[in-house]
């Protein structure tokens, strides 16, 4: 098994001094750092093989096309999709969800129902709200308990033959909860409803098997998976993607264009209008290689002890409110220090060399649930160390002292 010291060599940014200060990077939920191999793959492509795809008969263009399709195959294998055609390149999770909400959502009729949960990121709320508004569909929400667990009985009550789509996050970006997706998919399918899973957070921590989950759509972003910005994935079952209308239109996704009528290519191409994010796709391929080399077992073995350590240290400090305590959870800790506004804490953490996020984390309904304006959130990646957690805990104590 790779050790954290070995892994950290792939991420020199982690030990870089900024203004003479070394930061503990505990903002992995927002975005992750990229290993050198990913950066090098992108740079090498730009320096030596730069070309466009799907178009040229010349060597570099053929090669670039092949490398992009290779990434599609890698993604297919990585999430265990049945076919390559089920893997659509998007610019991120947000675009993937918008694509489904717009394209699949166009089949919604008045009175149809869409169910989401109270713990969604805005990216998995607003597109559904918008499509419900435009289609006259009804928007329903599964609540969660204070411990951060979805209310399964409420879900049972909300489900009906009117339910057309259920959109759930695999892992909450605030509470850390890992939801029981497989069970929920099973329930929804009994009513013929389709299920979209927002995997933006989960895939950083867990191996994903879309066939085992049996979900209809699964979305994630490269930049939260130790990979490039500007690229994300929409997985969709072949039968669904096949029958869905295109989303954006333009070059590379059409079959024949006349001024009277346009016909479109098959999935996945009909969803990929315009020149692809070629460099980013190739970088995502290198990211998957990197992660497969480390392996999710190692990731878990590295992350879980850090999470447990951080939690137990934090709980020993008085006057701390922690939000979310699900048994199955990722290394995401949201909390507040009594009498201290999260934003003030954030400034002091920065001063102390701890990079974390404070705010509503694009999940305002979770804030509303707890009646708070914001939380402090520390989030752990496989490259973090016990020393970094110590630094974070010292930060918490200093803040308490400062505002006492």
């Amino acid at each position, binding site marked *: 098994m790779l050790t954290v010291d070995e892994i950290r060599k792939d991420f020199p940014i982690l030990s870089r001094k900024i203004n003479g200060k070394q930061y503990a990077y505990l903002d992995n939920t927002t975005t992750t750092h990229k290993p050198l191999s990913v950066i090098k793959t992108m740079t090498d492509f730009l320096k030596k093989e730069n070309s466009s795809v799907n178009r040229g008969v010349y060597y570099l263009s053929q090669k670039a096309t092949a490398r992009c399709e290779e990434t599609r195959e890698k993604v297919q294998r990585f999430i265990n999709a049945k076919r390559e055609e089920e893997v659509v390149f998007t610019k991120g999770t947000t675009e993937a969800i918008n694509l489904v909400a717009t394209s699949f959502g166009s089949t919604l009729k008045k009175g149809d129902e869409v169910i989401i949960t109270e713990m969604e990121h805005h990216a998995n709320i607003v597109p559904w709200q918008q499509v419900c508004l435009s289609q006259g569909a009804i928007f329903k929400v599964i609540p969660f308990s204070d411990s951060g667990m979805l209310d399964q009985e409420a879900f049972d009550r909300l489900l009906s033959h009117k339910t057309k789509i259920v959109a759930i996050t695999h892992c909450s970006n605030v509470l850390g909860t890992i939801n029981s997706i497989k069970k929920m998919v099973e329930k929804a399918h009994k009513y013929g409803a389709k299920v979209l899973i927002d995997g933006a957070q989960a895939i950083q921590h867990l191996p994903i098997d879309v066939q085992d989950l049996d979900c209809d759509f699964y979305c994630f972003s490269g930049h939260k998976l130790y990979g490039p910005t500007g690229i994300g994935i929409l997985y969709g079952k072949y039968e669904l993607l096949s029958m869905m209308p295109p989303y954006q239109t333009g070059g590379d996704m059409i079959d024949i264009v006349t001024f009277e009528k346009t016909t479109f290519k098959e999935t996945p191409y009909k969803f990929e209008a315009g020149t692809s994010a070629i460099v980013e796709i190739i970088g995502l391929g290198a990211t998957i290689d990197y992660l497969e080399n480390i392996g999710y077992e190692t990731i878990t073995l590295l992350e879980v002890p850090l999470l447990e350590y951080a939690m137990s240290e934090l709980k020993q400090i008085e006057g701390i409110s922690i939000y979310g305590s699900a048994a199955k959870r990722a290394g995401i800790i949201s909390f507040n220090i009594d009498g201290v506004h999260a934003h003030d804490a954030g400034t*002091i953490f920065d001063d102390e060399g701890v990079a974390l996020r404070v705010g509503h984390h694009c999940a305002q309904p979770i804030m509303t649930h707890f009646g708070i304006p914001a939380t402090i959130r520390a989030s752990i990646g496989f490259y973090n160390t016990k020393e970094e957690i110590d630094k974070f805990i010292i930060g918490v104590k200093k803040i308490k002292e400062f505002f006492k």
Partner: protein
Amino acid sequence: MSRLKKLYESTILDHNKNPRNFRVISPCSNSSHGKNPLCGDDYFVFLDIKEGIIEDISFHGSGCAISMSSGSLMTTHLKGKTVDYAYQNKDVFLKMVSKDMTSEEKKILGKLSVFEGVKDYPVRVKCAALVWRALEDALGKNKGEISTE
């Protein structure tokens, strides 16, 4: 920590813990609602103006130490003053939190100059400015809503 101590000056910490004029004036002649959705700062500013004089001023809401103490010190500073004086102080205050000031300008602000340290923290500027933006809005029209981010 010394830069930080300059940001969280003791007056600021005190006004955060014990905000002055932290109440609703109702009815009032002018008011506005200011919020910063990113960090959740959310305040109302109330004014009672008679013949160009701010006879009473208060604020209410929730937010970080910088925004809270800014509300407390602003209301303390402006009570009983003219509307013109409020406008002038607003301009100088907003300048102070992002740029360097002349010593003359500093004199105008008096105690408010404890917020000078904010200019070293660009992301906190909007916290200090929020209640002043709400004040500006309240003075301009009679009731309003503003947002900074």
